[in-house]
């Protein structure tokens, strides 16, 4: 008789091979979980897949259903993941006393996020102006809820076009999603607005967006576009996107080009990751046979 873990694996494989939908996979896993509620391996896998698929509330309430049951480290991690992924920060306080160690601190952090949300909602309720919408939009951006942040920032900009706070937050969101065309269009509308254009970030982000757009439209070879984009992003202060471009470049090139390896090393240097920075720069030096100033700068890092 097939064991439940194999059945779970079979379902996961069927989904991976597109034989069943995500919903069908979750349904099948749910049945196995309910038949084996004390099987931790099954519980963890099922719960994680449900959370990723958008059913975090259901999972949090599975834990609430058993208030006396002690939580393993994995349970605490899954619960924190569910609270965060599903934005159910208001439920954090219901688990006080059931978490311990560092997880207790993270639970308190989640509860703190709910307090902040209540604060910003109150701000908007009292005075739903551009500033309040922008502040809440920024809060959502910091929570990595960019699609939710977008709504508030758009409203802020509608209420007060070219208000620098909202423009900046929105521009950051767009840049991080590589929507550079939207950035240029948005900022060009405010080219005549001194309040916005005199801010330090305005020309930096505007020029970055324009140059990245121009590269996209150019006839340059793909690797050259990626290399130039990575340089633009890292010099403008967007290391995550720069790293993404750099990794794409190295993958396309087979990790042999010393210039590309050095660029990756430079990006990690800017991200303060000494180990990886040294790894890539050393590799670049080995292939090119030349020493670079960057390696001595990396060596001096703490």
């Amino acid at each position, binding site marked *: 008789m097939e064991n439940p873990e194999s059945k779970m694996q079979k379902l996961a494989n069927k989904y991976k091979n597109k034989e069943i939908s995500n919903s069908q996979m979750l349904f099948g896993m*749910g049945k196995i979980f*309910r038949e084996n509620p004390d099987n931790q391996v099954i519980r963890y896998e099922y719960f994680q897949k449900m959370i990723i698929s958008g059913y975090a*509330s*259901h999972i949090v309430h599975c834990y609430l259903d058993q208030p006396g049951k002690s939580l393993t480290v994995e349970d605490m991690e899954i619960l924190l993941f569910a609270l965060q992924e599903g934005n159910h920060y208001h439920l954090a306080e219901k688990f006080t006393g059931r978490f311990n160690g560092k997880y207790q601190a993270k639970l308190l952090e989640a509860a703190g996020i709910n307090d902040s949300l209540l604060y910003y*909602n*109150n701000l908007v309720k009292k005075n739903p102006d551009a500033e309040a919408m922008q502040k809440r939009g920024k809060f959502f951006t910091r929570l990595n809820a960019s699609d939710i942040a977008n709504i508030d920032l758009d409203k802020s900009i509608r209420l007060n076009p070219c208000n620098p706070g909202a423009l900046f937050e929105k521009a950051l969101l767009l840049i991080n999603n590589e929507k550079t065309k939207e950035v240029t269009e948005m900022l060009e509308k405010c080219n005549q607005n001194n309040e916005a254009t005199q801010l330090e970030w305005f020309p930096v982000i505007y020029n970055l967006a324009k140059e990245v757009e121009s590269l996209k439209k150019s006839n340059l070879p793909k690797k050259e576009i990626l290399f130039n984009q990575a340089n633009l992003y890292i010099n403008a202060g967007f290391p995550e996107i720069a790293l993404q471009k750099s990794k794409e470049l190295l993958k396309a090139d087979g990790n042999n080009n010393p210039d590309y390896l050095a660029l990756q090393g430079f990006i990690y240097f800017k991200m303060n990751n000494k180990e990886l920075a040294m790894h890539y720069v050393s590799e670049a030096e080995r292939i090119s046979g030349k020493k670079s100033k960057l390696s001595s700068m990396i060596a001096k890092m703490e």
Partner: protein
Amino acid sequence: MSLKDKRFALLTLLLLAVVFAGLDLILGFMLIPESYSSFRIKNKIYHHGLEKNVSAEAAWGPLIYNFYTNNLSFRDEAVRDIPLRSEKKRIMIMGDSHSEGVGIEYPYTFAGRLQKLAVNKDIEILNASAVSYSPKIHYLKGDYLLNKTGLEVDEIWVTIDISDLQNEIAYQSFQPGKTDAGGFSGTSIKRFLQKRSFSYYTLDAIRKNKETDSMNETLLALKNQTGSLPDRNAIGLYKEFFRTFDNEELLKNPDFHGVSEWIYRTQLRELADEGLQLGFQNIGKLNQLCSEKNIRLRLSVHPWQSQVFKGDTTDYYVESWREFCRSENIDFINLYPAFINEENPLWIAKTCYIEGDNHWNETGHERVAGFLKKYIE
């Protein structure tokens, strides 16, 4: 053929029938998958309802949850006996899938939460809701419960949403006692065969799959407009409610199935108004019944996700029901502000509704309970 031969033939046939029946039941036991909706049964008086004293598992999309009903065939926290009369004040909720609490364990539904709160106030909450109920069924069921079974209640809370427009049109031709309510589990024999006979189950499944596929195709066209499609088990349930509806042209029209947009689109407003008028008639009858029995009637309207995004707490639908309630002296509760307020609408959608669905998750139900608790007095 001699008598002996005839007897032999008859005995052989009988033996074959017994062997077939035996094999059929054994295969049924081994191969018929569990049904997550066999407790949903047709009803000659009020179209459909729930089987009584059920302890089962239900499914909504990928969500599997416990499902219990009491002796009155109401969803409840456990299988239990509810007396027809009570010393305590009684509030009976009558709503559709939102109020039934699809996908959610009963204690976390708004009705379940209110039930718990009400205990401290010496009040009972009963939940007579079921998937795809609408004003016509609320009236027919209310009439049956109050006049035929002798159930006594002090208040009835009817919960309305945009789906009632479509349901009212679909149930228009249903006549109590005269119309077959369609594909639900029917008589006890049928239900037994569905659960135990492999051959009956297989033939029934083929028929149902064909019909679900056909409905699925129509809804796919709607998906292109709205970007979402219900799960197959939800589609299967959805199509059952149209068994007494014979307007093929409307059934095959994707717009007909996008009821949340009816009030917003000029070309569908007429359909919306038709649904509204039917709803008013039936709630009017329910109100009359309540007046006769000295029962207080309250009516609430709640939003779907799409309406949360529209951000209008006093849209055409809300105002139509508000005006109707005012004219009929019915207490009106607008639940839209529970979800449409200073909060970010996408935040509300993601935290309060089941993923890709118009039904509330546990947090959404908690919100509704929080909004309604002041009416428990």
